[in-house]
């Protein structure tokens, strides 16, 4: 069993903290994704866990063993933590087998263990190739095998797929997830790609400006974002001003009156609003239903199609709504052809999420 605990970590360079008190726990065998925009401190967090950076405050604990904390700083070579860097960072002077065996005792470096691992990542036929002869995806699989070779308690993945092209990325992600699951290794993945975080992780921790905004399962993060910023950062969202009606406490059901009509909504966690107060209504693009004028969905309003981005399986339609300054985006199935500058009927399918307006925004 190996459970990672990060406790109130403060870290940074030359006294300027990049992380300002970050705490979370990753249970055994799970994959946690640390999601954040660039500059949010996620790479620093990874380096602190690996022992490559010394935290100013806080602790890193695996299974009760304190790796970093007050007067404790276990050097990276004795932490039993594997690392898969951004660009795979294979040793250019060693062949694939030599790379995988790097962390093993000398006698086992070219033995069965690295070969078994290469088998597991599907690179057994490439054992004697040099890194320069591999494609990007192959390098990442070798880097993962290398990190797993020492049976680490924890594997850290630093934006491992950002260098791959989109077509390859989905494949490599799935393979990596499968290998980690089979190895039953706890892992932390750092990424700025929300698709990657949502699709791969058991737990997602969202980091912004050195603080954790929210920790939860991918579904929780998507369905109950803790802030407007987070809603827009993960999955994209349209934010619409409106007025609140009914229930005053957080989690209460009610409705918001806005340019789309009276929309059923729920107050987000920790938010308080009284009847008639200004709120922001947050809706996901797929919560909007768009249809022809001759078969309007119930409670619909009329909007103008400004742009259509077609993806095959679905499409994103950009709409001008009456009474709404910003155009809004709706994600619809790709089975309908939308004419630019034509009028369509727009309705809301399900309850939205409401955030009380901060006084500064009023």
């Amino acid at each position, binding site marked *: 069993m190996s459970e990672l605990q990060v406790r109130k970590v403060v870290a940074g*360079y*030359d006294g300027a903290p990049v992380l300002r008190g970050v705490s979370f726990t990753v249970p055994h065998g799970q994959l946690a994704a640390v999601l954040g925009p660039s500059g949010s401190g996620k*790479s620093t967090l990874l*380096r602190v866990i*690996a*022992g*490559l*950076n010394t935290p100013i405050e806080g602790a890193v604990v695996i299974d009760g063993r304190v790796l970093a904390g007050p007067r404790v700083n276990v*050097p*990276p*070579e*004795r*932490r039993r*933590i*594997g*690392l898969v*860097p*951004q*660009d795979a*960072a*294979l*040793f*250019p*002077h*060693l062949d694939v087998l030599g790379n995988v065996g*790097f*962390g093993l005792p000398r006698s086992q470096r070219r033995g069965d263990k690295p070969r078994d691992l290469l088998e597991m990542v599907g690179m057994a036929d490439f054992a004697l190739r*040099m*890194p*320069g002869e591999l494609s990007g995806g192959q390098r990442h699989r070798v*880097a993962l095998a*290398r*990190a797993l*070779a*020492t049976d*680490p308690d924890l594997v*850290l993945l*630093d934006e491992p797929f950002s*260098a791959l092209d989109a077509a390859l990325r989905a494949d490599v992600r799935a393979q990596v997830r499968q290998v980690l699951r089979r190895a039953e290794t706890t892992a932390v993945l750092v990424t700025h790609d929300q698709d990657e975080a949502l699709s791969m992780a058991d737990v997602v921790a969202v980091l912004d400006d050195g603080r954790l905004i929210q920790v939860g399962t991918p579904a929780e993060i998507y369905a109950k974002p803790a802030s407007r910023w987070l809603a827009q950062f993960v999955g994209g969202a349209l934010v619409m001003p409106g007025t609140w009606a009914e229930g005053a406490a957080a989690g209460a059901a009610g409705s918001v009156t806005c340019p789309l009509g009276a929309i059923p909504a729920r107050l987000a966690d920790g938010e308080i609003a009284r009847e008639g107060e200004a709120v922001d209504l947050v809706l996901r693009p797929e919560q909007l239903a768009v249809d022809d004028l001759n078969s309007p969905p119930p409670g619909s309003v009329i909007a103008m199609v400004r742009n259509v981005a077609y993806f095959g399986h679905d499409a994103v339609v950009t709409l001008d709504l009456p009474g709404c300054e910003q155009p809004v985006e709706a994600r619809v199935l790709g089975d309908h052809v939308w004419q630019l500058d034509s009028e369509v009927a727009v309705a809301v399918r399900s309850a939205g999420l409401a955030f009380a307006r901060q006084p500064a925004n009023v």
Partner: protein
Amino acid sequence: MTSVRTLMTGGKGFSFVPRRRARLRLGRAFLIASSIVAAAVAAIPLAYLVVRVVGSDPNLVTAALLRGRMVELAVNTVGLVIAVSITALVVGVAIAWLLTRTDLAGRKVWLVITALPLAVPSYVAAFGWIAVTPLRGFWGAFVVLTLCNVPFVTLPTIAALRLSNHANEDVARTLGRSRLRAFLEATWPQIRPAALAGVLLVALYVLAEFGTVALMRYQAFTWAIHTAYGSQFNPTLAAVMATVLAAMGIALVVAERRMRGAQARLGTTVVARAPVTPVPLGRHAWWVHGALGLLAMLGLAVPVGALARYIGSTTAASTSVRPGALVTDMISTVSIAGAGALFALALALPIGLVAARIRNRLSGVTESASYLGLALPGIVVGLSLVFFSLKVVPALYQSIWMLAFAYGVLFLPKAVGAVRASIEQVEPGLEDVARTLGSSPQRVWSRVTARIAWPGIGAGVLLVALTAMKELPATLLLRPTGTDTLATSLWRYTESSAYAAAAPYALMLIAVAIVPALLLTREVVAGKRSPEEAL
């Protein structure tokens, strides 16, 4: 295709197309032929040296080879080469690491300071040490040559470290390596070819160094050759020793070329992405500053301090220099070095063009012929050309033309490097576009290729001239009687302990060397040039 062209050229295509092809082939053949001639000319010093040894009385050659002194000289020379090389390797790699991977304050300033010894020709540094310290012999030569040569390891190693992927070191740490082991196992293999190529260059320069070992009275080959020819009047002994020295130099150059090739192959496989997280030095920082400061003191402050002391002293007025002589020497130095640079350019143009544009086995051979200039110590080229001119072209013996020829051969690798790099910087795509816009190959050359390449080639020729102005051993042997250059005058005065008279010459020589040293430090560190092309 032909019919289309016929239409477009209004019916003249039938005769036009074949003639142009023939002309192109002719131009190519002419270019290749001239590159072969240039390579042959560059090989004259080595070839004639071999001819001279083979043509000597075999008994004399055997006697020369079997003398106990030959062993002593070989041991002395190789010992000095090894001692300086190993010290330069350790110190150079350590400095390179400190300046690229740590949070040492003022790294940019330290980079310039550690490169500054390049601006002091080693025999000028030797003059400084002799003038103010009692250091002589092996330790004298060792100290001076080490201080002057460390940058040849530091600068290319910095370039390689910046290219190397530091994430490898992080991975090695997580796989159980201490910081030192991680450096040795993950980073060192990536920078090893660059560092070792730098060390081989140091070995080559120490092997060829004449001024320092002679001033320090250290019995190495170069000084022995000079005495055997100059004061013992034993040309066969000198020729045999020069051949041995040439063989050692060629072996070192071959090894150095191999290392550079290995670095080029390594460099293409990895690209470092994330910025480096510097290693905090913490409380070690103060003694690192102290050690770097001490090296700078020894490498710069001693020679420059000696200069200042003798230039400032008026008591030595009796031996001090006459300004007229200084000006005369300056003029002859500039004109001979300029002629030598033009000679080098004439040989380098065909070789560099062929190397940049026609890549085949022949271009490899002609380009390596140019590296003879790097492999052959100045004293060897000087001696061989003395023999050559006496025997083959007596009219040119002790003329400035023979001296300019020696410079041309000695600095040919730099000139070829400049020509080749400048031509390669012109993308072939540009030439293709110019052709499709209706220019003939000759017009493309004059309107596009030469137009873009000439500033680089011109700068290269200037650098060759500046480097040639510091040349000492070949100049001593080949200069016309009564003509002196800055280097030979410094040499004469220092040998007779007239330090006050020598000081202004030392100052001039540092002034000559400082510009290329600083300019090229940047290019070597950026990985744009290899150090032997630069300095």
